[in-house]
Every structure is written in structure tokens, then in C-alpha cells.
């Protein structure tokens, strides 16, 4: 008798567990995405006050595109993201190769320190970088922001590229050398093509992180370094307007596309 009931009881318990977990997941998704959905919806609100829905309109988007300050902030954001991604991708990749392939003095320490920017809170990063710039007497400008962005992006690129590198069979590089390819040719013809998905994924992530960063940028910001997030923050002092919602929606869209891109590239290979 006991033998017969146990499987049934297990089945009931299992289906209960399944249902509970499904609802938990749904609840979690709602919690994560509902605010964003509301934000997106209200960016199409006709009314000047965000909390009162009066009708559908795209006028705030028109306003955003006409606003010279938004255009300027957008340009600054892109400038920062492009440069910091480019620089961080090159150095992050080289760092990953050095860490994975070579032995050098102090490697273990360097290894641990490299990933610190990922772990330590943004605010600490921001403060310490700011203090550093003040100490060495560099005045804040968009270049100091760029340096700070490169600093944290290198860590992310290095981690992603390195994961790919450690999966790569090192005998492939030996095979290239065996066939007469010098170190540069081996790097260009074998190492880089095999790492490319990792490099691109790392670059896309870096680009997104740079676009989205607020804390570090805000602390480092000198004249001419108002990025979109910083601009949104400054606008908030006058309350949340549908215009802010519209900018945020556009940023959300941009970041999502980049992240999906990065995932597809990593999945594909």
C-alpha cells in the first residue's frame, strides 16, 4: 500500500512545486519589468504630469529629438562609450592573453586586482578615482571620465575574453607555429579569429556599461561631460517629466538591443 501511494504523493508534490516555482518566476518578472513597462507607457502620455493619463501621444519623443541639450548629452555619451570601448577592448584582450598564456612576476596578485572594479561598489570606485585625480592635480574634464570608464571596462572585457581563451585549445597556436606562422601571424590568423566572438561580446558589454554608467561619470564629470544619465538626473530636480520617460525608454531600447546582440554572438559559437 505504502509502495503505491508514495509515487502519487511525490507526483502531487512535484506538480505543486512546479506551479509554485512558475508563479514565483512570474512574480519576479513582474517586479523587475513592471516599473519599466509603466515608464515606457507613460512616455507616450499626452499629459504634462506623468501620473495622469490623458491620451496617447508621441510628442515627447519629438521634444526629445528637438532638445539641443539632449543632443549634446547624447553625443557626449556616444563619444565616451565608443572611445572607452575601443581602448578597453584592445587592452582588455591583451590583458586576457597575458594572464592566460604567460607567467610573470606578481601574476596572482595582478589577477585578483584586475577583477576588483567589478566587485567594489561604484561609489567607492568613483570616490577613489576622483581623489586620485585631485591628488595628482588633473582638472576634471571629459577625458578624466573617459579614463575612469576605460578602467572599469578593461576588467569586463578581460573576463569575457579570458573565459573564451581558456576554452581554446592551445595546440592550435602551436599548429600555426609548426606550419611556419610567426607569433604575429599566429595571433592574427588563429588567436584573434578564435577569440573574436569573445572580443565582440566583451566590447558590446563595455559599450552598454559605459552608456549606462551614472555614478562614476557623475563624480568625474567636468565641463562638457554631461552624458545622458547625468542629464536625466539633472532634469529630475524639476520632477519626472514625460520627456525624461521618453529619453529613458530610448536608452532602455538601445541597451537591450546591444545586450541581445552580445548574447547572440556568444551563443552562436
Amino acid at each position, binding site marked *: 500500500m505504502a509502495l503505491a501511494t508514495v509515487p502519487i504523493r511525490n507526483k502531487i508534490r512535484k506538480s505543486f512545486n512546479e506551479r509554485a516555482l512558475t508563479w514565483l518566476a512570474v512574480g519576479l518578472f513582474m517586479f523587475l519589468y513592471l516599473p519599466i513597462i509603466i515608464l515606457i507607457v507613460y512616455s507616450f502620455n499626452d499629459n504634462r504630469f506623468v501620473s495622469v493619463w490623458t491620451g496617447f501621444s508621441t510628442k515627447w519623443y519629438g521634444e526629445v529629438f528637438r532638445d539641443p541639450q539632449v543632443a549634446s548629452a547624447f553625443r557626449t555619451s556616444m563619444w565616451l562609450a565608443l572611445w572607452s570601448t575601443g581602448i578597453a577592448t584592445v587592452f582588455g584582450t591583451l590583458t586576457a592573453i597575458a594572464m592566460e598564456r604567460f607567467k610573470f612576476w606578481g601574476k596572482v596578485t595582478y589577477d585578483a586586482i584586475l577583477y576588483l572594479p567589478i566587485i567594489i561598489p561604484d561609489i567607492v570606485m568613483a570616490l577613489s578615482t576622483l581623489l586620485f585625480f585631485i591628488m595628482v592635480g588633473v582638472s576634471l574634464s571629459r577625458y578624466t571620465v573617459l579614463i575612469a570608464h576605460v578602467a572599469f571596462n578593461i576588467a569586463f572585457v578581460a573576463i569575457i575574453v579570458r573565459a573564451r581563451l581558456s576554452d581554446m585549445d592551445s595546440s*592550435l597556436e*602551436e*599548429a600555426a607555429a*609548426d606550419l611556419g606562422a*610567426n607569433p604575429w601571424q599566429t595571433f592574427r590568423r588563429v588567436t584573434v579569429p578564435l577569440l573574436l566572438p569573445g572580443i565582440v561580446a566583451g566590447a558590446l558589454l563595455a559599450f552598454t556599461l559605459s552608456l549606462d554608467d551614472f555614478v562614476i561619470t557623475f563624480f568625474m564629470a567636468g565641463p562638457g561631460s554631461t552624458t545622458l544619465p547625468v542629464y536625466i538626473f539633472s532634469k529630475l530636480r524639476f520632477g519626472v517629466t514625460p520627456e525624461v520617460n521618453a529619453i529613458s525608454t530610448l536608452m532602455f531600447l538601445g541597451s537591450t538591443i546591444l545586450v541581445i546582440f552580445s548574447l547572440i554572438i556568444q551563443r552562436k559559437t
Partner: protein
Amino acid sequence: MKSAVQISDVTKAFGDVVAVNNISLDIADGEFFSMLGPSGCGKTTTLRLIAGFEQPTIGQISIMGQPVAGVPAYRRPVNTVFQSYALFPHMTVAKNVAFGLEMAKIPQNEIESRTNAALELVQMGSYGSRRPTQLSGGQKQRVALARAIVNQPRVLLLDEPLGALDLKLRKDMQLELKQIQEELGITFIYVTHDQEEAITMSDRIAVMDNGIVAQIGSPKEIYENPVSRFVADFIGETNFIKGKIDSVGETTVLDAQGIHLVGSTSTELKKGQDAVIAIRPEKISIVSAKDAGQSANKSAIAGTVSQTIYIGTDTRYQIELTTGDKIFARLQNLEAGQDVQFNKGDEVSVEWSTQNAQILAE
């Protein structure tokens, strides 16, 4: 004769692990040289030292008369067929094969014709546009071979190049390889686990054991005159009977529990030393106990047939000797329908000629 590769007193240690222990090899130009030995004995490490992927801890290596210490892998006139194939996954089969030629800046039309010829040679002509991931293990191995051969190196290093092939293809490729080697006059340094492969293909074989070279010689020398119990055991099937050295001289006499067995020896042995006599199963003749008799240049020992196994060309007999050792003998089945010559339980005497038995240190 000119040397293709000279390895002089080379040791390679990885931390505490001594992978190659003070070996010296002199491989002649155009030779088919095999390295044979159990897993982990240092075969791959030796190839990697020649290819330039590892540097010797001690010792010197020369290729075509030039010392190669400090010469990077890409400047050495050798190519490797890797144990793990190491095909470039992001290139087609044809691009893989063409890689070496491109690095050597060969004109494009010549690259194409040579690539095609190399792929034809390994029967992979129609696979040029595939990716390595779309090939079976055996096909990968053949592409790896084509990729190395196409460069016409002076020395080709092959690390178990036929390991993943089925028996039929393996036999075909063995012939093919041997033919390629003779036609192109390339020196082959060939690593294998398979002693039969080594014996049938090689001009000379080095038997390796735990980082040292146990014996170097022609297949015949190694098979007929093994210098150690390890070599005799590793190459082909061998019977061992234990005993102590009774006397040394023109022939050596082993005392196996009172029975005197005579054999030849190529190593220094001392009277009273523990030793074994090694006899190949096919070199043993069996006679019934009643016909037994000592003759001058033969050793004989009595025993009982404990098992007979029909294996097609031969019948294998397991015989339990009066010393307690069990040995195998094989007699050829010359006549069709011939019955087994001896049956289980028969009292017999096994005999062998002195020159067919080796006495080796235990």
C-alpha cells in the same frame, strides 16, 4: 649517412616529473624512425622537443646538422601531425591545408594545386569546403596529415597519426604513408602505441620506457634480440622462465629450479644473478614426452598441455611446465582439417634452439 635529427643527452623535466631522461637519438635523413612505448613514456614530449614547443632542460638537438637551441618552432624545417589533430576550427579543410603554404608565401595558383593534390593523397579530395567540425575522427586525422605533408618538410613528426582509424583504413594508410615517405624522401619520426605498425613500417625503432630509450634497432633486431625483459615483453608475445645464471661464456646457462636452459645473451650477466629466459611462442616446438631427448644445441623442459586455442592460422597451446611457469607455444596449422596435434592433459616436452632464446636480467 647524413643525420636528419640528432638528439644528444637530452633531458626534459616538468617540475618534478622527468618526462625524457637523458636520451640520445641519431635519426638518418630519409629514415622511417618509430618511437614505441607505453602511455606516458615520453614519446610526445620528445616530438615536442624536436618541433620546438618545448626546450630541453639539458642537452642539445640538431636538425639537418644545425643546432636548434633558441630557434623558434616556426623557423624549424619540421612539420607535425598532432595527436589531437589541432585543425583550425574557423577555417575550411582546404584553408587548413593551405595554411603552411600561405605562410611560406607560395604563389596562389600553386597553393591551390598543391592543396588539392595533398587532399587527394589522403582520399579527402571532395571535402575541401567542409569545416573540421563536420568530419569524423579518421577524416580529421587524414586532413591533419595532408596539412603537414603539403609543406614537404625535411622531417615529419607524426604523433599516433593513425590512432583513430579503423583496422582496414589503418592498413591502407600505413601502406600509403610508407609510400609517401619513400617517394618524397622525407624523414618520418613516427610515434605509435601499436608494435605491429612499428615493426611493419619502420627502418628503425626506439622502444621507450619511462623517459629512457630501452633499445634502438631494426624491427628484426628488436624482435629477435631484445636487450631487456621490458622490450621483449612490449614487442610481440614472449614467454619468460625465471631462474639464476649458472654459467656465462659462449652461451649462457640459466638454472631454473635445477633444469639447465641455454640461451644467447647480449648484455652483461653475472653468475648467480636473477634472470629470465625469453622465448617467442612460434620458436618453440612441442614433442610428446616419450620422444623427448636432449640434443646439443637445444634446451628442453617437460610440461603438461593445459589449454589449446584454435586461432585460424595457428593453434596456441598453453603448457604448464614442471617449474610451475606457464608458457605459450604456437604451431602453424599447415593442413586444412588437420586435427590439433596435442590435447589437453598430454605430457609433452617443449624445445627451442639456443639462438632463439634470450637470457635477460630480471
